[in-house]
């Protein structure tokens, strides 16, 4: 299916899909630094906050 023309799509949508099927025209995924931020802000940070907030 990939790379093949799909009947019935409007020409402008077809043009966009054809361009985006080329990996060079796609956005890149998360980089290593992004994973570090995600883990810091979404996992480690919340755990530390929960420990801080619990009455000692």
């Amino acid at each position, binding site marked *: *299916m990939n790379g*093949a023309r*799909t009947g019935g799509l409007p020409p402008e949508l077809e043009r966009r*899909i054809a361009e985006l099927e080329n990996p060079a025209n796609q956005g*890149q995924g*998360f980089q290593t630094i992004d994973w570090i*931020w995600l883990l810091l*802000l*979404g996992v480690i940070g919340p755990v530390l906050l929960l420990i801080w*907030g619990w009455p000692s």
Partner: protein
Amino acid sequence: MNQETKTSGASGAHRTADESSWPLLKSERAWGQWELGIVLLVAAAATWCYVIGEYVGYYLDMRMGFAAMTAGSMIGMFLVTLAVVPSATRYGIDSIAASIPQFGSNGWVITVFLQYVSIIGWNSLLLIFFGKSVSQLFLTLGWAGEGAEGLIIPAATAVACIAVYLVLLGGATGIERISKILFVFIVGLGIWMIYELLSQKADVIAAAKPSYASGSLLWDYTTGLEIGIVSLLSWWPYIGAMVRVAPNAHTATLPSMLGMGLPVPILSVIGLAAILALQISDPAAWLVELGGTTYGVIALLFVIAANLGTAVIGVYASAVGLKQAPIFERLSWRASLLLGLVPVAVVGILLPDLFFNNFGTFLAFIGVFFAPLCAIQIVDYFILRRQKISIRSVYDRSSDSDYAYWGGFNPAAIAGMVAGFFTYLYLLNPLTYESRSPYEYVTASLPTAVIGGLVYLVVTKLLVQPAKLGGYDK
């Protein structure tokens, strides 16, 4: 074709994509981290934060409430970011299009419905809050007498709906423009309000006890965490339409986590502190108590700025999402906007109190459905598809599409959603907030996500992949 005509043609095509669910090309995705961060902050920073803070303040004091709410918010944002940002930024698609590989070419029925109900719910809450603030101010200033609330709230809701409609006639360009203006109001006035409240009522807040504490500190803490998680899970319908204008996932990561995730707990501190110290979360009411009518006017300006920006972005996201539905595909942009706005106007004008008083149930509804939805997308994109989907099949509604599955629906996704639904119901009753163990140790939404994702993985491995459906073998 001269240069002017070429430019006009490119701009027209971009505008078509901007006001449709079509993917944006790399050349059209020009928002940097700051632009995206500002738009996401404006989307997240609204008076729902006061209501979220108020709910947490029923169970927890200031320190525990802040910790649980912030931790929960960041966990919820983490799940939403992992679920939507990678595919939305790789292909320039919104949240609904990003979920078609998992739910199927007719699966939009499920996700568009969830998006539509969720955004209408949040927008109704915002505009009712706006109407209440206007009414409160009119009463304070003596511009209206007791009993006028019944007229002011519907009138204010109608005016807000018209304003949102007019801004969105310009598509995403209208959003970026208004976000830059509202950003200054929201951040500046938000910080000022926190300062006023904490400086004038610090002692009262520190000593205040939550009025509906259950008696179990652990249960209350977990409930604060749960409220934070589900509140941010509700950004799923919003975020795709915004991050798709960023060129890659790296550009969207910090704006998503810090721009959309962090402002909610920070602004919710206002609601948390206000409910603990003054037993009311609406700043239009408590700021008058702290500083008179001038403060009340400032609070109303904040409510207008914050809620208008969020409502604009919400209606834009729902209009783009609705375009995924074949029956709405050819609908004009104006008509799509009206589909997102008319139900909000109806709820805001006819049922404001009924909706406002059942906010907790609405939050639980979000957790019930969006927790497994996020997990299904994460499992599918990262584990099963190794970060690649067929952009052609996302828009191909024929039976030849990779995502046609059985009749356009993927049973793995439906099984994952059903399993998640019953997991949540077992752990926490959304209507009564009665819970079963191990809720107090694990929350309701996190196990719901885990079970939903696991069931999706198992059904895909046992049923979908052996049938050579879903495009997993390409």
